[in-house]
């Protein structure tokens, strides 16, 4: 059924974006970057901060806490020239064309298959899985669902994630 497109947030051409996929620059994980993440969140377990503690616990090197992949997720699409950022600081980040003025984070769902350690190199691929338009209390909304796959240098999937961005 064709909706009245004047009520929609997404441009008609947005639907051609379903299935589009980007593989970003590989992200080298370092003990220092894991430490920065831990300090920012407030994580104090030494297996994430100190190599000796990590090795004593059976890890090959400092192990990233679950959630660290979100630092990778946000960094890699935003490594673009300053002039390409929007006035509010946001970046385009594989967002289909729309007349939305605001973007909000919707539900995020993640599966952890194996640990990420300092020394790993992680490559993220992001794919637009689906687009959906709804009318909410505050007017029309669009939901962009992304599938993300995080792989190590051997091609093993370490984290998979589904992330919804809300446009209005």
């Amino acid at each position, binding site marked *: 059924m064709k909706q009245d497109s004047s009520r929609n947030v997404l441009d008609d051409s947005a639907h051609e974006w379903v299935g589009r996929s980007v593989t970003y620059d590989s992200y080298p994980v370092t003990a220092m*970057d894991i430490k*920065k*993440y831990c*300090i*920012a*969140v*407030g*994580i104090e*377990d030494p297996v994430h901060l100190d190599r000796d503690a990590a090795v004593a616990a059976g890890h090959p090197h400092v192990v990233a*806490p*679950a*959630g660290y992949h*979100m*630092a990778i*997720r*946000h*960094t890699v699409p*935003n*490594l673009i020239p300053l002039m390409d*950022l929007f006035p*509010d*600081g*946001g*970046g385009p980040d594989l967002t289909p064309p729309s007349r939305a003025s*605001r973007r*909000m*984070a*919707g*539900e*995020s*769902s*993640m*599966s*952890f298959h194996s640990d990420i350690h300092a020394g790993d190199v992680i490559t993220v691929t992001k794919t637009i899985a689906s687009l959906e338009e709804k009318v909410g209390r505050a007017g029309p909304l669009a939901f962009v669902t992304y599938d993300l796959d995080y792989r190590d240098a051997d091609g093993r999937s370490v984290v998979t994630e589904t992330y919804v961005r809300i446009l209005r």
Partner: protein
Amino acid sequence: MTLQLPAWPAVGDDLPQKPLAPTTVQLFLYSSVTWNPHRIHYDTEFATEVEGYGGVLVQGPLLGGWILQAAQEWFRGVGRVATMRHRSVATAVAGDSLVLRGRVTDASSDGLDVEVSIAKTEDEDAVVCRGTVHIERKADADE
């Protein structure tokens, strides 16, 4: 402070609460390590006067990061975080006083599910984020 549980919990158990007190400094550092240039997280004038929020916004992924941090502390050495799902239901801003709560809602052959909420300290019904974590019990964990 650690939240580590003294024993494997049962369905219905409330897990130790974690107080959270996000500051502008913490939000700035989280934006920095996640390379997040969005002004609503560090530019108070922009967040309040242009976007109409009550302050600089706590990042949604940071709320998810806190849920994962608590899950890892609760089950340190005995369980592993296998999956996590979360969504923001209201905004939290720097200066808010928050409490993270968890309750075991289901048990299965491989582990258990914990429902987590992060709410304003002054009103436990003022939930800003809800999540569900699935914990796999480690095979070598002691009873």
